[in-house]
């Protein structure tokens, strides 16, 4: 069935280290993926997206990698800062009743150790 899952519900990293958050998806027909960041008390904020015709996309301090062979998505955050503490969601774009919808994973909580 439709599902987007995360390998780890929590991730703790040292400030300044790189963080890698993983996500598995189940629908091989999905053609668009997004990472969101949700800070406490706020709605999810768009971080970066990637289409299925790409393997990698870079933003400011973030990189998304897509491996379609194993249906795996990852978000890499370089030089993690205290402000990166949040819950990170991956989302997969699926066809639904003739329209398109995003299906979200459960989220990974990233905590930064000083």
């Amino acid at each position, binding site marked *: 069935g439709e599902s987007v899952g995360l390998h780890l519900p929590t991730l703790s990293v040292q400030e300044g280290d790189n963080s890698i958050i993983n996500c598995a998806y189940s629908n091989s027909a999905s053609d668009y993926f*997004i990472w969101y960041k949700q800070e406490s008390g706020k*709605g999810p904020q*768009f971080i970066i997206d990637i289409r299925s015709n790409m393997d990698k996309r870079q933003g400011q301090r973030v990189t998304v990698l897509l491996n379609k062979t194993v249906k795996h998505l990852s978000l890499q955050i370089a030089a993690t800062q205290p402000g990166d503490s949040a819950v990170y969601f991956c989302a997969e774009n699926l066809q639904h009743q003739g329209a*398109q919808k995003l299906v*979200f994973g459960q989220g990974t909580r990233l905590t930064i150790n000083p």
Partner: protein
Amino acid sequence: DVKVTQSSRYLVKRTGEKVFLECVQDMDHENMFWYRQDPGLGLRLIYFSYDVKMKEKGDIPEGYSVSREKKERFSLILESASTNQTSMYLCASSLFWGYGYTFGSGTRLTVV
């Protein structure tokens, strides 16, 4: 930047009350969505709309209805609130299908 505004951050309602959650976006987006967010369950789609007066059921529409009389406003209605509808409700909008959503800050609803 697109702004999606949800009218209330926190609401407390009694069981059986009719509850309206309002969402307004200011960038002329065609598509609007209502999700609820619960610990361990992530974000689940309740209803969405791709045009004025159009609505489609999401994954968990039971106990909810929606209204979209104007393009910028999408309302979620709990006809008779129940305690199992206590949750964080998130509204989102997007310009195109298959494009990233912009979310509001959420409304935390408690039904007592």
